Each structure stands twice: as structure tokens, then as C-alpha cells.
């Protein structure tokens, strides 16, 4: 007489990390199989061909590989930036704006200082300006949160729009040529303020900077007193106060750091890669970074893999849409399917499914 379902769910104890990755691996394989089916049904193309093209799009040539690495570095950089805040359970979804304001600060220095200082000095000044701009964008929501308990999610989200509008305004101020509504490549002839090229590779320096940042962030979160404070504040403000941690100071300090790293990425984007400013320069990566950080459970080393996966998918998707003349939406469908499976696999890392035998008779 009692209703009895076929299975029930139970929360798992924490899985060892290799099992977690095994489940994710299985999810990716399943996702690829599912993608193949969809591809065959919708386009009639050979899925193996499609997948090899995706791979080719990301790593097919040295140039493609460098671009993939550059994209990876930028996405990873933003993910690293938001991680301390997220570990503190400060839901900073304003990385988009914090990076863009860094871009704007960098572009402003490059444009206004052109011809006035040497290129090297200009790089240093724009770096400082970008860091500061990002830090301010991180400081404001944290200051209000710490003092008046404002909602950081809404606050950081709105700061994104302010950054976008500021960028839009200054693009018109500095537009070249007048009336085009665009800035174009800044200092194209002098290359003043451009990040220096090392080893003959345009993106190498940028990639190295992010690599070092990854290591530093890992150590910072894992072994430093600040990292410990962040972890305690994230767990409970009351516990933190009890342990003598100054909660407000930690919130503000961490968000300033988070914003400053975003600013750094903004600097790398403008000075190191794009040499221009548009309102869509960050391109939603401030939000994608949230996913990168979550999927890696806020572990900077794990974030290398999660950001690689996302960048790989995006690059490959672009490639297949051009090679096969498919609509770009098709690439989005494939990316969507794969992400769905990966995020869905989290369910299986958190819960076990138990099937019930229809054993004992009710009464």
C-alpha cells in the first residue's frame, strides 16, 4: 500500500578526485557520442570528420595552436581573478566589467600618452592604470557589501553596464577616423605601448604571465594566511569574527585583488593581443569564467583543464561552421550538448542512485 519508487537518491560522501574526473571523462565520451548522432541526423555529415575538424580548428596548425593558447590564457586569467572572491562566497559576476574597465584604462593610456613617453614606460603606466581600474571596480561592490550588506550579485552585474557604457563613450571620443564609431588599431605604426614580443612569439609573454599567475594563485589560496582567511570567511562570517578575522577587511581586500587581476587581464587583452578597444572585447568571458572556476571546484590547477576544454570547444566550433558551411548555431548546439553532459555529470559526483528490489511485500 505504500508507494515504492524504483530507485532513490542518496548524497555521496566526497569522491576522491580521480573518480570525479573519471565520471567527467565518461560524460565527455557520452556527449561526443550524442553529438555524433545529432550531427548525422541533422547534417548527414560523417561525425568523425566533424570531430577531426573541431580538433583541427583548435590545434591544426601552429598558428591555430597559439591562438588557442592565447584564448586559454585570457579565459584562465579571468577565472583565476574571480576565484578568491568565489571561495569567499562573494558572488562576483562583474568580471566582465572589471576586465573591460581594465581594457579601457589601458587603451586610454596608450592613446593619450602616445609620443609623450617611451613605449616601455607606456606599458608600465598602462599596466598600473589597468590594475587600478580593475581594483576600483572590485572595491566598490565589496565596500558596499561590507558596510551596508548590499547584494553583491546585483551590484557587480550593474557595474558591468557602467563599464560598457563608459567604454562606448570613450570609443566615440577617440574614434578613428571621425564618424566611424571605432577606434581601430591603436598606435599601429609606432606599436607604442604594445606588450613586447618575446621568443618571436606574439602571445608567449602573455601566456607566461598567466602561467605564473596560476601558480601564485594556487599557493595564495592553499598556503597563505590570506587564503585561510578567505576560506573561513566563505564558510561563516561569525566563525571568522570568532577567530579574530576582520571580516570586512578580508572582503574588501579580496575583491580589490580579484578586480585588480581582472584589470591585469584587460591590460593583456589590449596591450598584448587586440591593440584596440571595443565594448565587446571581453565577449562574455567574464561569465564563462564563472563556469570554469566552478567546474574546477575553485582549484587553480584544475581550472587549466576546464578552461582548455571550453576554449577548445569554441575554437573547434568556429572551424566547423566555416569548413562545412554550417551555421554557427550548429557549433553552439554541439558546445551546448557537451557542457550539458559535463555539468550534468556533477549530479552523479554528488549523488548515488540506488535501485530498489521489489523485495518484501507490503503487509
Amino acid at each position, binding site marked *: *500500500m*505504500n*508507494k*515504492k519508487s524504483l530507485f532513490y*537518491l*542518496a*548524497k555521496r*560522501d*566526497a569522491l576522491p578526485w580521480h573518480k570525479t574526473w573519471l565520471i567527467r571523462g565518461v560524460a565527455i565520451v557520452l556527449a561526443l557520442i550524442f553529438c555524433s548522432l545529432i550531427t548525422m541526423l541533422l547534417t548527414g555529415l560523417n561525425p568523425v570528420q566533424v570531430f577531426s575538424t573541431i580538433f583541427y580548428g583548435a590545434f591544426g596548425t601552429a598558428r591555430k595552436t597559439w591562438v588557442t593558447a592565447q584564448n586559454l590564457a585570457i579565459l584562465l586569467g579571468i577565472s583565476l581573478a574571480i576565484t578568491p572572491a568565489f571561495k569567499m562566497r562573494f558572488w562576483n559576476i562583474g568580471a566582465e566589467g572589471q576586465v573591460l574597465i581594465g581594457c579601457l584604462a589601458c587603451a586610454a593610456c596608450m592613446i593619450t600618452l602616445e609620443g609623450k613617453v617611451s613605449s616601455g614606460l607606456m606599458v608600465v603606466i598602462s599596466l598600473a592604470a589597468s590594475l587600478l581600474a580593475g581594483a576600483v571596480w572590485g572595491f566598490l561592490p565589496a565596500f558596499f557589501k561590507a558596510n551596508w550588506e548590499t547584494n553583491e550579485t546585483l551590484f557587480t552585474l550593474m557595474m558591468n553596464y557602467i563599464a560598457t557604457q563608459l567604454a562606448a563613450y570613450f570609443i566615440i571620443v577617440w574614434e578613428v577616423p571621425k564618424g566611424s564609431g571605432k577606434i581601430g588599431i591603436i598606435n599601429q605604426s609606432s606599436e607604442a605601448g604594445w606588450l613586447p614580443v618575446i621568443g618571436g612569439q606574439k602571445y608567449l609573454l602573455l601566456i607566461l604571465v598567466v602561467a605564473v599567475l596560476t601558480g601564485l594563485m594556487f599557493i595564495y589560496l592553499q*598556503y*597563505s*594566511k*590570506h*587564503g*585561510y*582567511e578567505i*576560506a*573561513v570567511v566563505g*564558510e*561563516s562570517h*561569525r*566563525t571568522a*569574527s*570568532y*577567530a*579574530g*578575522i*576582520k571580516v570586512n577587511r578580508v572582503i574588501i581586500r579580496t575583491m580589490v585583488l580579484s578586480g585588480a587581476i581582472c584589470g591585469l587581464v584587460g591590460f593583456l587583452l589590449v596591450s598584448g593581443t587586440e591593440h584596440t578597444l571595443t565594448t565587446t572585447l571581453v565577449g562574455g568571458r567574464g561569465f564563462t569564467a564563472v563556469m570554469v572556476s566552478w567546474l574546477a571546484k575553485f582549484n587553480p590547477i584544475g581550472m587549466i583543464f576546464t578552461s582548455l576544454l571550453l576554449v577548445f570547444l569554441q575554437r573547434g566550433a568556429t572551424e566547423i561552421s566555416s569548413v562545412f558551411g554550417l551555421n554557427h548555431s550548429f557549433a553552439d548546439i554541439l558546445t551546448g550538448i557537451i557542457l550539458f553532459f559535463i555539468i550534468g555529470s556533477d549530479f552523479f559526483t554528488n549523488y*548515488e542512485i*540506488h535501485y530498489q528490489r521489489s523485495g*518484501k511485500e*507490503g*503487509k
Partner: protein
Amino acid sequence: MEAVKNAVRMENITKRFGTKVVANNAVNLELHEGEILSLLGENGSGKTTLMNMLSGIYHPDEGQIYIHDKPVTISSPKDAFDNGIGMIHQHFKLVDVFTATENIILGLNEDGKLDLKKASQKVRDICNKYGFDIKPDQKIYDMSVSQKQTVEIVKVLYRGADILILDEPTAVLTPQETDKLFQIMRNMQKDGKSLIIITHKLHEVLEVSDRVAILRKGEYVGDVVTKNADQQSLTDMMVGRRVSLNIDRPAPVNPQPRLTVEHLTVYDDLGVKRLSDVSFTANSGEILGIAGVAGSGQRELLEAIAGLYPVAEGAINFYDPNVDYSDPANKPKSLVGMDPMSIRKAGVAMSFVPEDRLGMGLVGTMGMTGNMMLRSWRKGKGLFVSRKEPEALAKRIWEELEVVTPSTSFPVRRMSGGNVQKVLVGREIAQEPAVLMTAYAVRGLDINTSYTIYNLLSEQKMKGRAVIYVGEDLDVLLELCDRILVLCGGQVSGVVDARTTDKRQVGVLMTRVGGGEADE
């Protein structure tokens, strides 16, 4: 005499949460018509879960429930009401800005126009019949805890319940209010109602019930007729083996003031006075108990001393055991206006076991080592934390207090309540404090761990430390402490010698000072 009729019979009831937790395993329980049954068991033994299946909050995975010998399926609280079952929960479910009557009829879907007058009259009738003292038109926020509880009881009677379940009803009451409640329970019994009282307090079981059913770790141990039972036999059934119920209380040796609080007054965020003119002295080598109805200012008092609650007026002074205060040049340290970090930096050896273990005393997601670091994280060199000492301390506590955990990095949140408390108390004692403050140190713990904690505290006292013990169980306070300070509505209503006083006297003090939430 005719054969007993069962108001409730639960047969082979099993309830699982997830795979590992079996909250109730094939439990059989009978409630005879017109009796008061005590459901006794330690925390986590599955008493509340079992009763929640009667009141329709949970649905059993296996088993059958019979009400007045008819098989029933109870899948919602409404089903429970239809079967005449009413449960009075530990945490009241009342709308503060409504009157008693409005709360009572809330959710009743009666036909026709809402007639508050008629409802009030019916509430009044019920009150007169059983001897409740509530006014139907009084707002909930104006009521004392005991009156709120009364509203909950009237609520189920109004709905025509003849089987009443009371979940730990005395936890929030003073001894006098408890007596009154028991009287009302007997009145209801005379009226033919059947009652189940969930409790873990043995003297209450012995006082009020006709029969006792005992659960242990989700299993039904058995039942005894109350007049054939005593405290020791019930404890043994509850725990499953023989437990010594004696608390060792040596006399204080050379008590010296360690902490003095003078005219302390604090206000909360909303400007409500939480402590008013509180003064007392905590001496070395002594356990000072703090008694009072829940919410009388105990939390505020300890947090104010620990630097976690703003002090509006008054003085808090700390006397270092290594300083000779007979020399007038030496002055005690004032703690007013200091935060926890500055208190520690000033060399004040004070430990605090807060009431909210995982929300304040510990970090749930961290292991024992990470939690030891809450006290020592600043000690590392330069920018980095040192894990070596905390790790060693964690290992020591793990061994000495027999904490059950797979490793020192296992998240404390996933340990059982008793082990969590051992980690917290162990850490605080390891600070070698001159003053040790504990708030509800044994709440929710099994009997064995409780006695471990009592002994640890007595040991601390014998080491010359000043121990402050905020407790809720008066029997324990009377057995463990040397002196008891009674708080009522944020004021000190008396300080008594625990060796000579009794429960009545403390109970009177708990409600003596007017105002606050005490009875008028």
C-alpha cells in the same frame, strides 16, 4: 477490566534517509487509549522521525500504521488531522503578528463566512475546559514561550485531535511552567485523550507518563510501565549498557577572581536592551553556572565578554593568574571595546565554546587540522600559515578525546554532534585558558559524551581555571557547578550556591524579574 484498546499502533515502521542513515528500523509502537506515553531516546535515536510519520510530515518506507485499529495511510498533515492526530512541534509554527485565535483557525478551511467571534468563543471554551491561561485576542508577539506553546496545543485541540504528540515540550520551559504543562496533560488524559511526549529528560518521564517506550539508534528497545522504572534502569535501556550518572564535584581550591563583570548593559541591532546592569565575578578553581530560560541574555553575555558583542555600558575586567594583584600598582585588563584579536594579542588567556558549534566555533568544511588553525593561523611565518603545530594538536585531541573520524582532514561537518563538540572543546581547552566559557556544551550530545564533557570541565576547574558553564538542564547545573548565576530577561535575578539550592529556587529566580519574556 476490558482489554486495552490502541489509539495508535505502528507496525514494522522503517524510514531511511539516503542509504546510510536508517532513522527508524522496523519499529513497533503502541499507544493505548487514554494513556500518556513517553517516547524516550538519546538525540538521534529517531524519536522525532517516528512521530513525524504519524503527523504526516514523513512517509514510512515500510510498515503500517493503525489508528484505533484501522489501517491508515498518512501522507500529509491533513491526513493526520483527519485521523485525530495533532503534533506540537519543538519549534513553534505561529504567525507573530496574529492573535491566538487567528493562528488557531489559520489554514482551517471551514465552510461559510469567517466568524472570528465564534472561533474566539470556542478557543475560550477549550481553555476553560483544560485550564489553559491564554487570551484568545492576544497577539503572539506579546506572549511568553509557555503561552505560545499553549496556543499550539489549543490549535490541535480545536481541530478535534484526540491523539496528541508533544515534541520535547519542556525544553523551553521553567520548572514551574513544566509543572503546569504536566497538569494540563493530565487534564487532557482525564478527558480521554491519548498523549505521546517525546523527551530525553528522565525525571519528566517518571513524573508524567504511564508507560515509557524506548528507542535506541533507530531501533525499538522495548517499553516499561513507568512505576516499575527508575532513572538508572531507563538510562541503561536508552544507552544500551550501564552508565554511571555521577558527576564529580570537588570543592574549589583557593578561588581568586579571574573575571569581573560590572554593570554590563548591551543593546542588539534593533536597539533592544539584551543585558541590563549585569554584575558578577568568575573565580579560579570554580565552575560558575549560568541558568535562565532560553534567550535571557546568555548568548549576549558570553559574546560581550569574548569581544563579539558591542558593550554599551559597564566594565569587564580580566585578572591574569601570573600577576599579583595584592600590589595596587597592578591593574586588571579591561576587555571592553576589544575585538577577539586584540583580546588575544593583549595576552588574555580566554577560551570560548560557543553555542553555535559549526556556525561560529568551527569551520564545517575543514578538517580537524584546519579547525585547530582558527586559534593559531596568525602564528605562521610571514605570509604563510603553519600547519605543523595545528596538525600535532589535532592528532593529540583525536587520541585523547577519542574523536571518531577517519583522518584529521575529514570535514568536521560530517562528524557526529558529539565528535564535533569534542573537537571544539578539545581545542579551547588546549589554549590553556585562565577563563573558559562554554555555552550549552552538551546540547544534542549522547549521554556518554555529555559525561566526558562534564569531567573535562571539572578537570579544568581543578587546574585552577575559571569555568563559566551556560546550561539548560537544571539537574546538571545543580550537580556540576559551584555557584549558579540566574539570568532573567537580561538581568541577574540571583546568584546561588549550587550545593545548597534546589530546582524550585532556581526556577523561581528564572522568572522573577519582570519584563523580558518571563511570565508576569
